[in-house]
Every structure is written in C-alpha cells, then in structure tokens.
C-alpha cells in the first residue's frame, strides 16, 4: 500500500468488469481528499460505463430511526436478491463520534450472515458530522458500485425530519418505521418529512403494536401522495421471521419499473446528482456561495437538465466558479 494513485481508465474498466479489488480501490480513491486524488477520481468517474450510471442497476435507500431493524431487514433483502440472481452492494452509513471524530462501524455481519459471498460487497462509511445523516461520498461511491453491481443499497440512520435525506439521492427510498412510535407518522402528516417510495413496518412478529402502526401509516398515506404520482405502499414485514420480504423486494422493483415506464428513470438520477452538487456547495460555501451561482433553485434546475458529467468534475468546475466570483467581488 502506497500513496500512489491508480490509472483512472484502467481502474474504471476493472470496476466495470466487477473486479472486487478494483472496486475497493475505487472507493478508497473516492474517499481521498487530496487535490491530486480528486482529479484522479473525477477522471475515474468519467471513464465509468455511462449507460450503467444513467439507467443501469437499482439504487435504493433504506432509512429509519435507530432500532427499527434496518440491518436485519437489509440482511433479509440481500438473501432475496441473491436468490433472484442479483449482485448486491451496500453502503452503510454510521454516525461518527461527535467528540472524537472516530467511529465504530460494525453492522456488516448483521447485514450479511454468511459473510463469504463474493457477490455481496459492503462498505461502511462514517457520516463524519456533515451532510445531515449522509456522507458527501455517498453519491460518487454509489455510482462506482452501480458500475459493478445490480442492486446498490444505501443504509442510513435517520432521526426526526432528517430521516430521509437519502431519498433525494436514490432511485427508490424505503423507510423503516419503528412499531409503536408515532414520530414518523407525525412528521409525515405535518409534511416536514420527505415522502419515501415504500414504507415498511418491521417486526410484525411482535403483534399488535406493529399492526397499529401500519394502519396509522396507511391512513396517513391515503391523504399524501408522492409528488410524481407514485402511490406509496405500506408493507408489514418481519426480518426476524423472514416474512414479507419477497413482497418488499417486489415493491421496490415496481417503483423502478414505474420510473422506467414513464421515462423518468434517467431524469431522477440527474436530479439526484443535482441535489448532491447543490448540497455539497451549500456545505462548503453556504447560501452566499450558491447565491453567486444564481441561487439554489435555479442552479438545481440547470444542473438537473444539463447533460450529466462526472459529479466530481462538475463539482470542481462549480467550485472554481464560486471562488472566482468571490475573488471578483473582493
């Protein structure tokens, strides 16, 4: 292991060829903050097979409060997808310690009991106190994974209304509700939580509490609708018993097919990237910086409609513009 950087095109080709070591190196590269590494990463993303990034695979977000059983649900979904012959990559985002910056990342085996399957790839990420529950690396890493795997699942812990920030950077978002906790329902009702594409109540094995939560969610959803017109299903599952997992996998798949049938799939990926770019800029320069580029809304629309480029190249270009503007004003 040295600090030498890989050759971007060769690395991209190897990732496209599903080389696991290459994917691991690519993820390391996308995590690398040195300026020279950023250039290399931009070139790497540019060299990835475009069709896979535009319309290939299925990028799914799974989120919910701590203790809702996301990891065990992920484990159950992995089994279903593997039975269907799909290759699965996971990005697991864990919080890092606010005091030390260090992090404990330990859910791999809970998500993937057998642990030896080469067609399952898990990378954990510490959210490092930024991006509200997400990590800035999630979007570029998701793209690298989409180049090599059929399903890419991003797992995040969410609390309160930040719960589903991930929904803006995935094709399909699944929210796991905690039985007997009304918080998420209140957030949904108040319209302060982004509406997910699929809602599940885990732990149906515990009985009454889970059934009650499910029926409340169904009632709430009747009055709400995804802005794009997708009817959000609410499902009951038990990761512990393995029940309801096949229908959940089907529901996630239906949303992908729905997007594809309406010709919205690629557009959604475009919007995910635009979202990431805007968020990343806001993180670095605040509203003032984005204002120099014409404001958040205008910038978002422009980015969502422009032809897609590598997110890092695009970001660096936007960043350079902001800095130029700041200097011009100074």
């Amino acid at each position, binding site marked *: 292991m040295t600090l030498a950087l890989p050759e971007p095109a060769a690395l991209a080709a190897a990732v496209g060829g599903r080389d696991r070591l290459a994917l691991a190196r690519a993820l390391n590269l996308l995590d690398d903050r040195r300026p020279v590494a950023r250039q290399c990463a931009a070139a790497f993303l540019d060299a990835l097979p475009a069709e896979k990034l535009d319309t290939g695979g299925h990028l799914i977000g799974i989120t919910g409060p701590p203790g809702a059983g996301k990891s065990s649900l992920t484990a159950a979904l992995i089994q279903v997808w593997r039975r269907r012959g799909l290759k699965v990559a996971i990005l697991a985002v864990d919080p890092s310690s606010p005091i030390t910056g260090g992090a404990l990342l330990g859910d791999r085996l809970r998500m993937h009991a057998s642990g030896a399957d*080469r067609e399952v790839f898990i990378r954990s990420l510490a959210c490092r106190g930024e991006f509200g529950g997400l990590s800035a690396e999630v979007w570029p890493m998701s793209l690298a994974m989409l180049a090599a795997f059929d399903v890419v699942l991003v797992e995040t812990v969410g609390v309160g209304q930040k719960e589903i920030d991930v929904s803006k950077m995935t094709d399909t978002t699944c929210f796991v509700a905690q039985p007997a906790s009304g918080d998420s329902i209140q957030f949904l009702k108040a319209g302060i939580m982004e509406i997910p594409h699929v809602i599940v109540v885990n732990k149906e094995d515990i009985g009454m509490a889970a059934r009650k939560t499910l029926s409340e969610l169904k009632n709430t959803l009747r009055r709400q609708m995804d802005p794009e017109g997708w009817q959000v299903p609410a499902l009951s599952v038990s990761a512990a018993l393995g029940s309801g997992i096949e229908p959940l996998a089907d529901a996630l798949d239906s949303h992908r097919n729905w997007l594809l049938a309406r010709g919205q799939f690629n557009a959604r990926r475009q919007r995910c990237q635009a979202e990431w770019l805007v968020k990343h800029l806001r993180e670095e320069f605040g509203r003032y910086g984005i204002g120099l580029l014409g404001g958040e809304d205008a910038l978002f629309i422009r980015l969502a409609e422009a032809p897609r480029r590598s997110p890092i190249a695009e970001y660096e270009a936007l960043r350079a513009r902001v800095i130029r503007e700041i200097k011009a004003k100074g």
Partner: protein
Amino acid sequence: MTTQVKRDKPWLMRTYSGHSSAKASNELYRTNLGKGQTGLSVAFDLPTQTGYDADHPLARGEVGKVGVPICNIGDMEALFDQIPLGQMNTSMTINATAAWLLALYVATAERQGASPAQLQGTTQNDILKEYLSRGTYIFPPAPSVRLTTDIIAYTVKNIPKWNPTNICSYHLQEAGATPTQELAYALSTAIAVLDAIRDSGQIGADGFEQVVGRISFFVNAGIRFVEETCKMRAFGEMWDKLAQERYGAQSEEMRRFRYGVQVNSLGLTEAQPENNVQRIVLEMLGVSLSKKARARAIQLPAWNEALGLPRPWDQQWALRMQQVLVLETDLLEYGDIFDGSPVIAAKVKALVDGATAEMARVQEQGGMVQAIEAGYVKRQLVTSHTERMRAIERGDLKIVGLNCFRETEESPLTGGKDSGIMKVDPRAEREQIERLNAFRAKRNNAEVKAALATLAETARSGANIMPASILCAHAGVTTGEWSQTLRDIFGEYRAPTGIDIAANDDARGARAVAIRTEVIKTGEEVGRPLRLLVGKPGLDGHSNGAEQIAVKGRDVGFEIVYEGIRLTPEQIAKAALEEGVHLIGLSVLSGSHVEMVEDVFNQLDKVGLRGLPVVIGGIIPESDAKLLKEKGIAAVYTPKDIDLNGIMVDILNLIRKANDLQPVATA
C-alpha cells in the same frame, strides 16, 4: 470464647482441566484424583463447545487447545475410562451443546452399568452469559433458553442429584462486571431461566420447589476479598428472598444459595507471574471465610495462566493451595465469623440495594433476555471494563508488577526449557480427526440417520430434547451432526458487541487529544480517515481485548470496523478489502494464534491485500511472538501491554511506515 461447632465438611476440590485428547485427559484426571482431588471439572475444546467436529474448517487450530475434544460417545468413553461415573462428581463447562454432552455422559454411564439416577455433577448450561462473555453460543436466545429448560426438566425428573444449570456470574466479572452488576445480572438470569421453565409447563406447580432447589451458581472471586465475602452473603440473602417471594419455595433447604467457584483470572498478570500465587490464595478467602456463604466447590486457576496453558505441576500447586487451607488451618472449626459485624452488614446492604436497583432496570426492559438482545447489558459491562482498564493505565488501580514495582530479578520459574507452560502436541488435531474418521467408518449409518431424524422432529415439536439426544449418543451421532441438525432448525445468532458506549473522560484527556491530532493529520496525509479492522478469527469468544482496542481506537479518532467474535479468516480478508482499512488487528486467546495468522495471511493474499499491516493481541508466549513476526506480523501485544494509548501510537506509526511516512513521536 468461641462456640465450638462441628468441623465443617470440606468443599469439593476440583481443577478445570482437559486437553489434547480424551485419552490424555483421562490420564490427567486419574493422576489428579490420585493426588487428592475430590471431583472432576471437564474443560472442553472450542469446537466441542460450539458444536463442530474436529474436521470442520472452523475447528482448524482449535482442536484440543483449551480443553478436550469430544466428537462422539467413543471419545466420552475414553475420557472416563476406569472412572466409575456412578460414584464420581463431574462438572462440565458446557453451554450451547450442554444437552448433547450430558446425553453422551448419560449414555457412557449406562454403558458402564450405572443408572442415570446415580449420577452426580453439574452442567454449566447458562447460555445467557455466553452472549455477554466467553461467546460459545450458537442459537438465538429463544431456542437456547428452551434447551436450558429441557435439561433442567429432564434432570429434575431423571437425574435428581444433578445440578442442571450453574448460573454464572463468573464470566461477568471476567468481562468487567462490578460486584453489583454480578449480583444483578446473575440473579436476573436465574429469573429468566426459572420463569421459562415455569412457563414451559414441563414441571407442575407442586414440583417447582425442587426446580428452584436444583439451581446452583458459578461465581468469581476477585482480589478485594472482603468485598467478595460481602458479595457472597448478599447473593445468599437475595436468592433466599427471590426463591421464596417469586417462586414460593417454602423449604429453607430449597432456598439455599449453592455455588461453586473459580477464582478470578482477569487480575492474574503475565508480568511477574509468581505474584499470582498470593492473588489466588487471597481470592480463595473471599469464598471460604464466611461459613454462611461458603462455596460448595472450588477450582483454582494456575499461577501461569496468563502465559499459556498450565502444566500438571502448575495444576497440582493450585490444588495444594486448597488442601493447605482446608487441612492445615483452623478455618473449618468455627461458625460464621462475620455474623454481627456492622461493617460487613453495611457493605452487604449496599450491595443488595445496588443490585436490586439494577435488577429493576433489567425487568423494566422485559427481563434479562430482552436486555441482552437490546445490547444494554453488554454495554454496561464494556463500560465497567473500560473504566477498569483506564484506571490501570492511569495507575489509579495498582497492580503489583504491572503498573508499579515493575523491577524484577530473573524468574527461575519461567526460565526452564518449556518457558514455564505446556505446549499441546501439534499432532493432537490430526490424531483426533483420524479417530473421528475411524469411528464414523464403524458405526451403523442407518441408525445414525434415524436418530438424527428423531432429533429434528423433537426440536420442531418442542418436546424435551434429552431423550432424543441420548438416542443419538448411543447411535454414534457426532457433535457436529447433533449441532448442525439444530442449527438448521433454530438458526444461528450474533450477539450485540456492546462497544457502542459513550466516550469517557479519558477521550478528552491530553494524551488522547495529542494522539487524535496525529491520527487526523496522518489521515490527511494519506488522503482519507484512518481505518482499522479489529478481527477475532477462530472459535474463541474472549472478546475483552478486541472490545477495548475498538473503543480506544474510536476515542483516538480511528474509524473502527469490528464485527464481533468467531470470524473466519476469509471473512476477515473480505472485510479488510471491502472496507478499505489501513491495518488489521487480530485477537486470539485460545492458543491457536499461529494457525489463525497463517490462514489470515493466505486469505489476504487471495484478495490482493498482501502487505497490509497486521498486528495481533492475545495470550502469546514469547517464542510464538518471534515466530509470528517471522511470518509477517507487524506487532504482538500480550496482557502485560496495558498502555493502550501506546498501542495506538504504535499502530499509527505502522500505518505511516506502510505508506512511506516518517514515524511520529507522541509521548
């Protein structure tokens, strides 16, 4: 004047032992009995404890290491050859596979001509503590508790003199529990077990008092022997009350707190190991001084346990300590010497009050099983142990020879040809596999298949597992087959690691901050935050070391990937690759470190990570440390390395070296 009372009967004296093979262990047992030992305490190897045959890939390197390998009734018969089970009192440290080993014991006794009703002894059979410490669990909590209750129900009816379960506070102390926590969690476990057996309907209300009377405990005794004496008196009081109030036990005899002891190993040191002798003797006082709270059976560790496996001479020394106390001193001639002491009474009350409050917290969560599944109990233990380690590191908790008075003459005890420890014959594993194959070749396969089918049916139906298991034992079923049949039905489990505790004050201390600054700086130099994989390969479940390194690593700013115990080398290599770690730290305490390291390096080669720095911690003799370094291990840590901050600086510099950066000096 003291009132003269009848001299108290001496307790059972045992030595926890077993190694290499059934034949070698049998020889050791017969020698120990000849030396005046009055009972047997069988140590099983890790494959036997976790339900694998000697030829299973996960058993590699572990066969015969920390105990005797028992794959089938042939091994069990060899283990007790010329030892009449009808007269022996045998304690078996066995949990997840307790029903199976008890079945083999019963079947062996039957073949010797003894009836089950004659048998005396103990199966540890406390699965809940395995989720918290030691780690030899297999199945999820619900089916595990069911197996526990099956053994209790079966023995109460058929082996009335048997102690079917030894609720253990021993391992909780080894995992860092305070006396209060020991009391609270052991008694909460007893509640979980007794409630489960009551709810199972296997024992009627009229027979329940018998069940309460058969519950015994396995306790630890640390060096603070006055407090330990009080803890034992507190146990007695609380158990009496619980048995009466919660379970309606009327007879005083049925409410008596019966317990065996192994004294503390956590406090034994690798540095100046001869000091462990006085530690062990003092610890023995904590469970013997107070007649009211005196142990029924005592086993003492050997003075050199922190160095490696004890030799027969070391075990003899441990036995002689007990004999001197029992035979030469006047301890057994008096009634309880603490009755009426206000100091003792006040301390006992404080312990009872603390434990009662903690038990209430457990009950609020639904009971011990739920509190374990939620990770609560493990987090409490990791927190206590972290505090203890930090106190040793700071020097607030004095340990002679380790963090004070470290200067020493050269020890004549460890200077011998064998460096003062026993080496398991490396041929033991191969020979066990050969015996296993020969056994399989001779048995009636149709009979085996039928017995396993009965076992599976029993497991599914919920009927008592013991009769089907005894049938399997006679038919020639192996440990691996019995366990796999149940694995297929019950599934397997991974317990919470408990390391997700809040950072304590030391994380804000000057030293930690200084190291953290360097960790972050190095992260910037190599481009991304530094990541460590803490891995426990093999079947060994002693996770204190791995947990402490993980927590400390987090506190000095590393991103830590830790997945708990019992990983295969393949899983470790896979995780190292997928997680993009900068260094791997392995932890092995079963003595199988050489095989594990070889396997991990092979797997790292396979995934293309040759050259990734790997360090290891464990009970590793110096000669092995040298060997491991030759194989490519970057650093070896043993129990005498208590400066965790120093280890973190080491690790940081190993990562720097691997990335062609100059080392940093952090005082």
